């Protein structure tokens, strides 16, 4: 944990240096400039802080935005949610933003390799869980006891699908899903509607579904981790980005993330 605080502090320093650079000559990295003012001399940060976040972080990020605005009255947080791949595509296309938060490291790496973001930090982790409709009508007792039950998972190409495949591998079973969805929300929807007898979603999704699903314990579930990185967008306001990243990695971020069912790195 200590290490991470230090990493956070280091990041702030790096970002502050970057802010100096862009304030001076603007190196032109990344595309399209941000709408908020870029050159701000010193003291209390202010202006519009634009955060692009993965849809699965929506509730957490909304709470966090309220906390940041309360602590910094001159800052107005603007949020935009979407699939991680969509958000990265938007940033690469020059969408004005200060912070990018994705649901997996692969998509963030794509943005980093393109020079669109700088120094991503992992702020939260999520684990796959097996969920069934409330009451477990098909009597599913585990990943190895699914015969006949309609299982829905994410496709292997998307992060929640990779997590499901890894969970199956650790349990020595081969999954035979009736559908491979492209978003975890679609998997959850098919379970809550009773269309599917079981599904693999994230721990946070199961918590968000409230009473609509039951979680069936699968060995090794908490060992499979999907990491959520956050990074400052190059071309955005580095000072505001640092403010946000500080809030996520410190308090109140940790409390809000833990409350939503995320594990903390």
């Amino acid at each position, binding site marked *: 944990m200590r290490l991470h605080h230090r990493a956070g502090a280091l990041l702030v320093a790096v970002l502050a240096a970057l802010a100096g650079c862009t304030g001076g000559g603007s190196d032109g990295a990344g595309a399209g400039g941000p709408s908020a003012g870029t050159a701000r001399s010193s003291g209390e940060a202010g202006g519009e802080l634009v955060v692009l976040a993965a849809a699965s972080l929506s509730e957490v990020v909304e709470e966090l935005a309220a906390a940041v605005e309360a602590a910094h009255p001159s800052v107005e947080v603007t949020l935009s949610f979407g699939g991680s791949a969509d958000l990265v595509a938007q940033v690469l296309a020059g969408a004005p933003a200060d912070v990018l938060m994705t649901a997996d490291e*692969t998509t963030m790496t794509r943005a980093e390799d393109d020079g669109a973001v700088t120094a991503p930090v992992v702020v939260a982790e999520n684990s796959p869980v097996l969920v069934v409709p409330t009451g477990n009508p098909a009597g599913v007792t585990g990943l190895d006891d699914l015969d006949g039950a309609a299982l829905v998972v994410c496709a292997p190409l*998307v992060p929640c699908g990779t997590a499901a495949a890894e969970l199956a591998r650790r349990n020595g079973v081969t999954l035979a899903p*009736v559908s*491979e*969805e*492209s978003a975890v929300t679609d998997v959850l929807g098919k379970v809550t509607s009773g269309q599917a007898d079981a599904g693999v979603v994230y721990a946070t999704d199961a918590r968000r579904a409230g009473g609509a699903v039951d979680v069936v314990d699968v060995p090794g579930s908490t060992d499979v981790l999907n990491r959520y990185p956050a990074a400052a967008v190059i071309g955005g306001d580095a000072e505001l980005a640092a403010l946000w990243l500080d809030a996520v990695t410190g308090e109140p971020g940790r409390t809000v993330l833990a409350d939503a069912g995320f594990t903390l790195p």
Partner: protein
Amino acid sequence: MPAAVAATLVALPVLGMLARVPWDRLPGLLTTDSALAALGLSLRTSVAATAIVVVLGAPLALVLARTRLPGLRVVRTLVLLPLVLPPVVSGLALLATLGRRGLLGARLEALGVDIAFSTAAVVLAQAFVSLPFLVLSLEGAVRTAGGRYEQVAATLGARPTTVLRRVSLPLLLPALGSGTALAFARSLGEFGATLTFAGSLEGVTRTLPLEIYLQRETDPEAALALSVLLVAVAVVVVLATHRTRR
């Protein structure tokens, strides 16, 4: 001037997409197992959905255009509804009706008919959203063309079957052709209702639009290549429509 802007509004994004397509990788991207499975499934389901739409939609269009039954306006409004509904809403409607816990789905399942996650679900979703295209084209044609010629033929002594075969059908054929082509193109492009109602499994329910959506997560270039394929098929269909109209 507005006409030019309108044409540009449609043409420009398509050109923009073509400019981004990795043409050198195209043959490879279009012949992967997943791409071929998705294309094959899309073509099969769209043909099946179009057949259902023609068989059921043509009589409906005739009834709507020619009869004066009470409540016909309500029926017409309902039939046209999928045209304006967001596809996800269409999918939810199908789910609530034919899903495993749906109005009819539960009973069908008791009879051993399980539509959930099957290719049949894809065809149903496609038929649901494309039916209005056929009904709309055909109903309009039946209203504008026909009546007088048919009366003349009848007064000249032609029997009803002869009128239908020699006068009505030839007059309606172009509209039937374009309506069918539109319904086919709409089926081919169906996405939201399929994803919501049928799911997404390679070779079973993952049609070309679903494959594009999935590929975009990891390989945007592959998604673009498949998009070009879909656009090409759509263009061919539209061209074919214009030929039948002439």
